[in-house]
């Protein structure tokens, strides 16, 4: 059985962290995932109180997004709606803590509040109370105001959810406000699209009318780097999310694909300017490009260690079928991580400990098995398989809190973007698309 307790590091104290490290070494398994080895916090989300009228449909959106965010977070045991009181307490005076904390509900915490909308403006008073602390029950009290529309109701729910996750989930910021960038294929073209982390609000970012691949959003969420095909082959292109238009990236000779951001804002990518695909590093405008690999054969798909910025994982076909490697960011200290099969599309976890990648361990003509998502512990090279039987899985990408992995199932126009917790549970489809990339924050 794969026991997972990495997230204890964030959830609990330094003392527990030491215990967790000790147990990783003691057992012959890989540890990843979300909140394993500790009970999930049981929380109930009451329907928010709303006066009828303008607020009613928006409150429905708010309630369902909040519940979905808490369920998605992976650190809560969210009370089913059928198991909790029907009451929609508007504020501290109305909430009956005994009803929420006792009986079948048995919630340790309850989230509740009021949603008002008037004259095009919406306001949310939101609380989280500890059901077993009658004297000082308030854990969170927040007010959110925004315009009164569906998108704003959704965003306020995301902000409240992230606040709850931050407070009750061990001080790690939630991901409800993050975006996923991906490739949308249709009508013979591939464009870069973006959506909310939960699959809502999918929309086009680029409208170039060609083939755009491998979107990678910068650590400060200001730019998206991607590869775009023109008459002279693939080039790295840069789109400014702040300016809403393309910005320059110095043209490079050869085929240029698979960009990756360092946490400090440098770009690594695969360029064949020397006649052979090698990993290069340059600044965000493509200046000062220098090569960090030097070996005949495909070298592609770099991914920086987001924790340190001093290492990279990447994929190389130098010995035949593609394998996963790591190296220092200057190209030194090359280590092969996979021992066979067909390994591609590596993504380094935010805490620096894990590599998520796509792997077909029995690759070859007529071989059984498929391409699935795996996670490997960098230090021990031990791995676990996270998907099985979904179809051809590829392009895993970590959420900024390290608790989730989004990935592609299938490719091209038939591709779908899925997400799951980093222990492989909670898999669900988000949208049609390919090559997802989760924003840094």
């Amino acid at each position, binding site marked *: 059985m794969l026991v997972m307790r990495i997230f204890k590091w964030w959830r609990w104290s330094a003392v527990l962290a030491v215990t967790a490290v000790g147990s990783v070494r003691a057992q012959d398994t890989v540890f990843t995932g979300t909140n394993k080895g500790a009970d999930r916090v049981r929380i109930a989300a009451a329907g928010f109180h709303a006066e009828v009228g303008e607020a009613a449909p928006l409150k429905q959106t708010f309630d369902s997004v909040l519940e979905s965010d808490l369920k998605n977070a992976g650190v809560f045991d969210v009370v089913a709606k059928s198991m909790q009181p029907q009451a929609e307490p508007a504020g501290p005076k109305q909430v009956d803590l005994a009803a929420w904390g006792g009986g079948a509900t048995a919630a340790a915490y309850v989230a509740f509040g009021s949603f008002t909308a008037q004259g095009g403006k919406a306001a949310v008073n939101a609380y989280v109370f500890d059901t077993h602390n009658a004297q000082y029950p308030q854990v969170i009290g927040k007010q959110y105001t925004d315009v009164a529309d569906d998108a704003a109701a959704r965003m306020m729910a995301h902000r409240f959810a992230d606040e709850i996750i931050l407070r009750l989930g061990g001080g790690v910021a939630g991901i409800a406000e993050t975006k996923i960038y991906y490739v949308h294929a249709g009508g013979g073209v591939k464009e870069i699209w973006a959506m909310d982390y939960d699959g809502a609000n999918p929309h086009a970012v680029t409208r170039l009318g060609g083939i755009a691949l491998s979107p990678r959003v910068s650590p400060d969420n200001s730019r998206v780097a991607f590869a775009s095909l023109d*008459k002279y082959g693939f080039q790295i292109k840069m789109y400014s999310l702040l300016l809403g238009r393309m910005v320059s990236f110095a043209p490079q000779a050869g*085929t240029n*694909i698979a960009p990756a951001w360092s946490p400090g804002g440098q770009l690594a990518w695969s360029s064949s300017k020397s006649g052979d695909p090698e990993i290069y590093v340059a600044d965000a405008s493509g200046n000062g490009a220098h090569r960090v690999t030097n070996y005949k054969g495909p070298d592609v798909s770099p991914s920086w260690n987001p924790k340190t910025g001093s290492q990279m994982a990447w994929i190389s076909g130098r010995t035949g079928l593609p394998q996963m490697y790591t190296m220092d960011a200057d190209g030194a200290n090359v280590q092969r991580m996979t021992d066979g099969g067909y390994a*591609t*599309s590596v993504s380094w976890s935010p805490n620096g400990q894990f590599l998520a990648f796509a792997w077909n361990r029995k690759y070859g003509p007529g071989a059984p098995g498929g391409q699935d998502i795996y996670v490997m512990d960098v230090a021990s090279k031990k791995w676990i398989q996270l998907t099985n039987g979904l179809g051809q899985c590829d392009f895993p990408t970590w959420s900024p809190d390290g608790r989730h992995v989004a990935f592609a199932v299938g490719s091209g126009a038939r591709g779908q973007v899925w997400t799951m917790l980093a222990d492989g549970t909670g898999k669900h489809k988000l949208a049609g698309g390919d090559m997802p990339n989760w924003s840094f924050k």
Partner: protein
Amino acid sequence: MKRSSLSYRRSGAAVLALMLAGSLAGCKHKKAAAAPMAPAIDSGVTPTATISADPVAIDQGQSVVLNWRTTNATAVSIEGIGAVNPSGTQTVTPSASTNFHLVAKGDGGTMDASVRVTVRVPVAPSGDTGASSNLNGDMGTDAAFHAAVQDVYFGYDSYDLDGKAQSASAAAASFLSAHSAVRVTIGGYCDERGSAEYNLALGENRANAVKEALVAAGVAPGRVRVVSYGKEKQFCTEATAACYAENRRAQFNLDR
């Protein structure tokens, strides 16, 4: 499909060459023929034609807006662009200085007008450019090219040239040696299995392996351009072994 997507820049240059060679004499001839006929045939009104360009001088790669106006014309064309509306505008990106020659034909005769767009070309580094230029030599037809030069196929997840691939490369090299004006692109392709990013790198290695074979056989590297398409532009989309093999290729095309 690739051929039709060639940029106007290059085709414009080729057209310019044709125009310079043929049309200067041609338009004089037309004028000479039209002038005596106009008074003889009384039934038509002589067309009018004007054309302007804005700006009239550009740097290479920039665009110009052509603006033309004709009256009493039944057929209007601009050499290098083809048949056009009696009046209109069009944005063009000539790669070299060009005379845009407007010809308006009507019942009352023919009238023409031209405007010259000057393209400031950066001074090219001196070297071997002359011999391989499209302007000076004939690349021949695509059909003749593809009859003589076959695509190169690859094994599973491999960019090595096997015996068959080596002989295909050798045939291509000897064709290129015999036709010094021909320049080629080599497109690298992969089958639909595997990962899209990795396949782009693999396609690059495939196309490059063929280029290296050509260069080793004496073809100037400047005549060979490599483009990797990975699995983005597949020839065959069925999930069969034959189809996969069909897609694992380096494909030659004329680089016009």
